[in-house]
């Protein structure tokens, strides 16, 4: 297999403008098989937008997206299930793909949600629902998993377990993962490549590189990088308060 064959999705200088405002601009990234790429950044920095661009949910974009697979599992950030629709977890699992009973059980068990199989989706708690969403995304053994804050609302011990699980899934299925997360600690330990977004790519690299980056510290505060030794390097631009980016 050549290196090119391992690439699942490739974004080339993509941007999205809505109502005369750039949500993201000039973002390039590559997700490869077996690798976890994590997007971090403050609210409104375009993390979810970038993830949606990667899976083709936004149409009028600048730049281009090369997708090398159609087997995508997606956990969106926000999902509201309507009460007018009576839906059990089991029915939800087979929403976009036919799965046999065994695969459904396996996936639910994997994320610790097997006891919820016959529950009504509307009755689940936030954390339980998140586990079901994750189970659904992995159940069809996708090539590419796009996880937008997959552990929001999950209790602390469950959170660590789920992140561990995500890592395991990436290895086991040999799939690529595009992850959006707020949990900097996890990001720094379980990720292959970190991209720090703030409307554009502020900095990117291995977790270690990013943690030592000045701009990262500006965005997340000093303590964010304290888990790793501090190493400073210079950036070629600064952010002003009105969102402008100035070259040094």
């Amino acid at each position, binding site marked *: 297999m050549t290196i090119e064959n391992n690439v699942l999705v490739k974004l080339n200088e993509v941007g999205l403008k809505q109502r005369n405002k750039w949500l993201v601009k000039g973002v390039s990234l590559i997700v490869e098989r077996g690798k976890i790429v994590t997007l971090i950044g403050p609210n409104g920095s375009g993390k979810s937008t970038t993830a*949606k661009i990667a*899976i*083709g*949910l936004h149409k009028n974009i600048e730049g281009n997206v090369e997708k090398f697979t*159609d*087997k*995508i*599992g*997606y956990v*969106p950030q926000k*999902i509201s*299930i*309507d009460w*007018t*629709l*009576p*839906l*059990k977890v089991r*029915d*939800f699992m087979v*929403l*976009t*793909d036919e799965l046999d009973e065994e695969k459904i059980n396996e996936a639910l068990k994997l994320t610790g949600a097997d006891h919820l199989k016959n529950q*009504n989706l509307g009755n689940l708690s936030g954390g339980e629902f998140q586990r079901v969403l994750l189970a659904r995304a992995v159940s069809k053994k996708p090539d590419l998993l*796009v996880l937008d804050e997959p552990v929001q609302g999950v209790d602390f011990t469950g959170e660590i377990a789920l992140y561990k699980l995500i890592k395991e899934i990436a290895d086991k299925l040999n799939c690529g993962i595009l992850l959006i997360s707020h949990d900097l600690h996890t990001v720094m330990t379980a990720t292959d490549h970190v991209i720090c977004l703030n409307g554009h790519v502020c900095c990117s690299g291995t977790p270690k590189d990013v943690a030592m980056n000045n701009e990262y510290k500006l965005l997340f505060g000093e303590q964010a990088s304290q888990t790793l030794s501090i190493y400073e390097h210079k950036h070629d631009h600064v952010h002003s308060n009105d969102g402008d980016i100035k070259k040094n």
Partner: protein
Amino acid sequence: MFDDFFIRALIAGIGVAFVTGPLGCFVVWRRLSYFGDTLAHSALLGVTMALAFEINIAISIFIISSVIAIILVKLEKNTNLPGDALLGLLAHSALAVGLVVIGFLSFIRFDVMGLLFGDILAVNVDDLIIIWGGGAIILIVLKIIWKPLFASTVNYELAEAEGLNPDRAKAIFTILMAAIIAISIKIVGLLLITGMLIIPTAMARNISDTPKKMVIFSICGGLLSVIMGLFSSLQFNTPSGPSIIAAALLLFVISLFKIKQTIQLKN
């Protein structure tokens, strides 16, 4: 057996109920009741077109409703008006234009009441063929687009991200809506078609816990409403459409007791 007008009406009504059941579920799930109303109002224009150009009423309604649906989609994209305002605009404009056109067609006499509320006397063998043939096509197409349509009803982005085509399913569903209105107008009447789509489904929601059950109960509710409604229409000489809808309402009220029971059981 098709000589008896009542048997014809019954067969027509049963055919309609088989289709409004599943379509009604999507109308409720996707919150499209007012969209259904708008299409139904525009059906009046379709009827006048049919009379003016001497074409089949069902085909004419189908064409006009589809055109209105397309106009709605275009307006949604190109204006800043909210969806309900656009629906109201189209519904009342179509109704008004339809009535104005009827005024011009003074040489034609037809039963406006029958059009608005259904007329079981008017069902002929051709109508039966259109209802059962058209109904079968609608159900087959719905079966084909079921997965993308259902998945995008639950969550649009999930469906699209995972390789289904929600936009195409939605467009096809819109055409199916126009088609069901076209074929059911003689039985239920254009003012009450949305009721036939929604009320049996609402009843079904009260007593089901999965989408599949909801569809089945919705069909059963529709069938019962048609049978009860048509018999009482015959008995009391009431218009068929309102009688069917009143029967559906009765079933809905009964289903409310079932909810009460389940809530008590939970407590």
